[in-house]
């Protein structure tokens, strides 16, 4: 005969370590301040680069592949020589790399929501926008790393910016400003779309036309008229032209002002919407 006796209290050893850790150390009075909380989230974004380097590699290897492929396969046909083509295409390659990376802002946020980390952050006693702003700070650092990558490879295969180091620095800063502003839009998408896979799908649909139907890889004069019309209104066109000016040592003040104005406008429009969605999410 088998006898189960399941009523009594199970005998667990009283774990003193557990008890002192749990009940010990008195709590700090308040959560982290706005700056500290934001930096903590930026730190998290950097940790993610260390643990998931694939994300950075995906985003950088792809354009590097394009750089090499386009330079040596089509370079001669499009512009005349591989070297000349590299000089022409680099601003576009750089812009494409980083603009594509902005998508991960939405993917990361959406994954946080799906996995519940988002709830944990939202129930902390911290400055409300800290998780979003911190993520953008971290992402901007990633954009910087990716830009350095692209320039490194380009330099290895013979690229020399006519605008010198100052031109390169200027182009990178311009790109970071534009992409941080664009990231607010991705935050909105990340807060709205249901799954990370859907975010990826939607993003690719938007990003491919934006980056390819631009003067990034081929001079627009060679394209049909209706494509040229799109190229003309594409914000990435503006970005690529402004960056090209800086890299070639002939910056165009008008282009630069437009890119900065556009970035400002995107932030002013998208940031409040993103924050509102974030606060209102039920």
């Amino acid at each position, binding site marked *: 005969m*088998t006898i189960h006796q399941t009523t009594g209290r199970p005998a667990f050893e009283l774990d003193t370590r557990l008890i002192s*850790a749990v009940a010990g150390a008195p709590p700090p009075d*308040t959560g982290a301040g706005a700056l500290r909380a934001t930096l903590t989230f930026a730190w998290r974004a950097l940790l*993610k680069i260390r643990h998931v380097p694939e994300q950075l590699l995906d985003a950088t290897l792809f354009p590097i592949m394009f750089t090499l492929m386009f330079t040596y396969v089509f370079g001669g046909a499009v512009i005349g020589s591989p070297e000349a083509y590299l000089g022409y295409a680099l601003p576009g390659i750089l812009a494409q790399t980083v603009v594509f990376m902005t998508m991960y802002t939405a993917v990361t946020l959406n994954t946080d929501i799906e996995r519940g980390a988002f709830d*944990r*952050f939202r129930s*902390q006693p911290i400055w409300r926008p800290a998780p979003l702003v911190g993520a953008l700070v971290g992402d901007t650092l990633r954009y910087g790393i990716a830009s350095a990558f692209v320039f490194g490879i380009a330099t290895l295969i013979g690229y020399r910016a006519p605008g010198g180091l100052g031109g390169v620095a200027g182009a990178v800063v311009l790109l970071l400003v534009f992409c941080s502003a664009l990231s607010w839009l991705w935050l909105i998408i990340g807060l709205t779309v249901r799954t990370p896979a859907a975010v990826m799908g939607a993003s690719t649909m938007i990003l491919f036309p934006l980056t390819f139907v631009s003067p990034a890889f081929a001079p627009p004069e060679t394209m049909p008229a209706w494509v040229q019309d799109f190229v003309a209104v594409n914000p990435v066109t503006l970005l690529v032209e402004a960056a090209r000016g800086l890299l070639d040592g002939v910056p165009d003040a008008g282009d630069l002002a437009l890119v900065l104005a556009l970035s400002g406008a995107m932030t002013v429009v998208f940031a409040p919407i993103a924050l509102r969605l974030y606060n209102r999410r039920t």
Partner: protein
Amino acid sequence: MSRETWAIETRGLVKAFGADRAVDGVDLEVPAGCVYSVLGPNGAGKTTMIRMIATLIRPDGGTARVLGHDVTAEAARVRARLALTGQFASLDEDLTGLENLILLARLRGHRGKAARRRATDLLEAFDLSAAARREVKTYSGGMRRRLDIAGSLVARPDLLMLDEPTTGLDPRSRGQVWESVRALVGAGTTVLLTTQYLEEADQLADRIAVVNHGRVIAEGTSGRLKALVGAGALRVRVADGADRPEVARLLAVMLGAAPVLEPDPVALSLRVDEPAAVAGALAAITERGLGVSEYALAQPSLDEVFLALTGEPADGPAPSREEAST
């Protein structure tokens, strides 16, 4: 914190998803410094209720106050006082266990070395030191759960809410969770936990609220609930199915309750109000030459609680509804 203030006080709390009222007019009064358990089946509205109290979703009706602060009007104050471990792990899978806890410790105001020390202490306390430097995606379910609970303790909260903290844990991990709950209460924290197990509520909680379909259908101390439900259930397996009707008849006479014949042809069960009488009854049955191969005296299951309270078995969510966590 004065004793007059409830740790949690809700009045007519309502949350509806479309036509579905997930929480349908809940009045809850949780005294400060106790363990309070919300017991209910799948889809009862436990998670939804907790998320409203934790300021994560807005109530559609009614009010909720945490330690005197309104969850809508004074959300920031509420967040400063409470910690929530949700039903599903809320960790960053790409980071290590240590990094997850340092992150939360920093957000809670620990600085530099203090954050790391707090994180290390908690990892040790929850038996996770060996895995501290591994990414959370390599953790087992139980390890995640423990890390998740540790994440709520980086700063000792005044109110800790645990949504089904032990579902899926082995007995040892479950024991650790129970011990930490007791330790926290000893240190002055109020704990609200949801569970599907009466045994857990009984072991831990000073008071229990039973919820179903978004409403509280019974509330009180565990003793009071047991008085409503009965102390437990006796399950018997007879050696020979042919003996079952006779065993059922004898048990009914000796224990004064109607046995339920289970689908298994050798099994029967019945409600027991006085566990002490069980041994005598079983001995009498064996003396008559009726073979009992196995018996168990257990606390009533959630199903039996619901049967006793509502006259119908607990039911999960209707099949058309989606299990949602957002």
